[in-house]
């Protein structure tokens, strides 16, 4: 691979000609083309949506712990509302929190900065992708308030329930939700193209493929997975929309359609989607752990290849969600094999992360705590997945709370822990100031301990037979026992505690933006290129022509022999 042209060199158009020019308010915050501001837009939108989705979890968990109560700030949760709350919680967390924050916010912020480019190669496309995303977010919110209420057919939206208003009883909500999802997909298609093209073409002189930081690789792989898997589902979503609104019968068994077809389309996308959000989060950890362990990443290439292998394999496992859905039972054997085999690259990756700690000089700063807790929690998510991938055991476990607990042990580390890790680590670069370390530590312990107390009990209620999406377990003789009810109450109380701890984060975040201690250019003594730009860059463009970096080595040269200091930045000859 020859050294690619410098991105900076071919930015001829107006927005780029004048570096660091003062931007107007609307140029900066409303309609920016600068990747850093677009990143912040995505981050803020994602965090606001997270508050909504977290509130929904609070409302439906309260109903489960104390059935029939009038939930403070919500009221009594009816069965219809319960279904909507669960559906909107799940789809928002995945599509409007994990995706925008992990891929779009961190991808936008980090890719140009880490590869030494002044911006994405298609800045206007970038702006359009955010605007489409915002439109989709507005649409999904509108869907809560239409007559009939928000869609409540689960985030998987299986027809015929989702296809006919007389079954779902949400004539408008279903279609608005589906349209919102489709627009969101389109937004991320545009974003994904931008990420991949930028990483391919705009790297600093000297930056070879194996000098690219893991998180950049992983966001690009994630974007490719997304683009390769979402096409069929966009088509499927439009077919479902036609079924809902025009009376077509693509998924209607009564008229010869096939509801299982939707499940294939959904999960052919839905399973890779899990890795689409996993890879950026685990990539963030790959950046943080070397910095705070002062250690080179153990096996850069092996980690990269396990990431690629996981991505490729993730296209061949989708039907593990459908073992008992009425597919040919012989197919289950194929998908059990592929599913259990995916543990091979993933386990390898986790081992390599743990091995990176060997011989380190580990400082337990807040970003490092988050990254380490990611490994700890994700490991639980990983091992419990084996139970579900094993077809024989899944007959019992499918659609129980064991599944809910399992995937929250993957999604929560990804969406919440990964986000906190990234935000606390790059905060000095995002806003030019430090976050408060003491508050950060308290917030970390409060969040991670209570998270575990939410979901460990739910493994047990799942084993005892609790099925998903049930608004009151006392309707079932085997489930309405006091023992199980105590576990449900424990999970809910832990959730309330966890939510209260988030006030600390919001305070710390906002306060530090304005009043935090000023941070130097490279506060963590890190090696990657983003730490060579001035903190809280004033305007469009990241480097001046004179300071534009060239790259001389890989991204994780910590504690190299023969140097006085313990890090050797990529751009230092």
């Amino acid at each position: 691979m020859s050294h690619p042209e410098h991105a900076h060199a071919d930015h001829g158009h107006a927005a780029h000609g004048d570096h660091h020019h003062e931007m107007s308010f609307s140029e900066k915050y409303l309609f920016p083309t600068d990747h850093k501001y677009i990143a912040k837009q995505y981050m803020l939108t994602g965090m606001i949506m997270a508050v909504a989705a977290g509130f929904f979890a609070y409302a439906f968990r309260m109903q489960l712990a104390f059935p029939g109560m009038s939930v403070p700030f919500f009221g009594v949760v009816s069965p219809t509302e319960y279904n909507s709350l669960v559906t909107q919680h799940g789809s928002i967390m995945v599509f409007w929190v994990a995706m925008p924050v992990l891929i779009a916010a961190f991808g936008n912020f980090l890719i140009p900065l880490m590869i030494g480019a002044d911006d994405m190669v298609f800045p206007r496309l970038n702006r359009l992708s955010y605007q489409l995303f915002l439109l989709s977010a507005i649409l999904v919110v509108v869907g809560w308030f239409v007559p009939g209420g928000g869609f409540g057919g689960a985030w998987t939206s299986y027809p015929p329930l989702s296809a006919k208003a007389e079954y779902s009883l949400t004539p408008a909500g279903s279609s608005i939700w589906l349209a919102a999802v489709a627009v969101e997909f389109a937004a991320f298609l545009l974003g994904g193209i931008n990420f991949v093209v930028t990483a391919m073409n705009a790297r600093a002189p000297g930056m070879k493929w194996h000098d690219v930081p893991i998180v950049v690789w992983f966001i690009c792989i994630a974007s490719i997975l997304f683009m390769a898997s979402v096409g069929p589902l966009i088509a499927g979503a439009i077919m479902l929309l036609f079924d809902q609104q025009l009376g077509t019968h693509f998924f209607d068994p009564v008229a010869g359609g096939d509801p299982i077809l939707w499940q294939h389309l959904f999960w052919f996308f839905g399973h890779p989607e899990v890795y689409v959000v996993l890879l950026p989060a685990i990539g963030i950890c790959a950046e943080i752990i070397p910095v705070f362990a002062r250690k080179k990443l153990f096996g850069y290439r092996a980690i990269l290849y396990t990431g690629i292998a996981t991505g490729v394999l993730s296209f061949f496992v989708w039907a593990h969600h459908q073992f008992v859905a009425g597919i040919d039972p012989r197919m289950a054997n194929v998908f059990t094999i592929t599913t259990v085999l995916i543990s091979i690259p993933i386990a390898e990756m986790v081992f390599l992360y743990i091995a990176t700690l060997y011989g380190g000089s580990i400082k337990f700063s807040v970003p490092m705590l988050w990254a380490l807790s990611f490994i700890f929690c994700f490991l639980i998510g990983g091992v419990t997945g084996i139970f579900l991938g094993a077809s024989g055991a899944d007959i019992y476990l499918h659609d129980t709370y064991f599944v809910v607990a399992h995937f929250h042990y993957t999604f929560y580390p990804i969406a919440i822990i990964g986000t906190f890790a990234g935000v606390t680590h790059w905060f000095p670069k995002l806003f030019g100031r430090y976050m408060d370390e003491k508050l950060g530590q308290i917030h970390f312990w409060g969040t991670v301990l209570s998270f575990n107390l939410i979901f460990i009990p739910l493994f047990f209620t799942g084993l005892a037979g609790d099925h998903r999406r049930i608004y009151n377990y006392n309707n079932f003789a085997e489930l309405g026992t006091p023992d199980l009810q105590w576990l449900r109450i424990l999970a809910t109380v832990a959730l309330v505690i966890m939510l209260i701890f988030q006030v600390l984060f919001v305070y710390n975040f906002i306060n530090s933006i304005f009043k935090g201690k000023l941070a130097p250019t490279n506060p963590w003594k890190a090696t990657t290129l983003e730490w060579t730009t001035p903190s809280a860059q004033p305007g469009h463009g990241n480097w001046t022509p004179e300071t534009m970096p060239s790259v001389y080595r890989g991204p994780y040269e910590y504690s190299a022999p023969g140097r006085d200091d313990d890090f050797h930045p990529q751009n230092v000859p």
Partner: protein
Amino acid sequence: MLHLTQWLVVPASTFADDIDFVFGLIFWMVGFWYVLSNVAFFYLLFKYRAQPGKKALYVTGTEHDLLKWVEWPHYAIIVCDIVIIAAAVKVWYEVKQDLPPADAEVTVVAQQWAWSFVHPGADNKIGTSDDIKTVDELHLEVDKLVHWRLQARDVLHSFSVPAFRIKQDAIPGRDIMGWFEPNRVGTYDIQCAEICGIGHGIMGARVIVHTPEEYAAWVASSSQH
């Protein structure tokens, strides 16, 4: 707590123990790796915490003497994977692919939001005039192998009997066949395990496993109506 299978619903069918065995096998295997990884993780965190005057090592992850610590566990995991796959497929075959000869047949119909059942009656044949129809109550005879035919009227539902360790989605327009053999007298939950609208949370039924005498008496009393 240590043995997770204690948490499962009391098993009441012939293949329930086989499914629980797979569960237990996976539990011990992944439990072993889980504990081992955590021991390594926390040991390294403690051993290599930052201490004044101590510099970190420079290793790249290509050193063979170090790499073996990652590689050997990794090979061992592949072996565990194969064992788990074999156990899972064996039970899957038994429960879902195989259809052993039946002593009786029942029809299970799911609809928003009730279960209805057709029992064969005194002639032990479905589709005859002495069939016994019930709603939200399935009657079975202990130690008799039953074929069930599963249908749905409107949307997807899922026929789940946790005590029997059976679960199967019901699809409108299709008949899905399966089997179980209850081996424990008692009354157990049937739950709908696939979201099916606002009544999903109340879509339960009961299965009553009778002794042969009780079952005969039930058939006799139900046929009179």
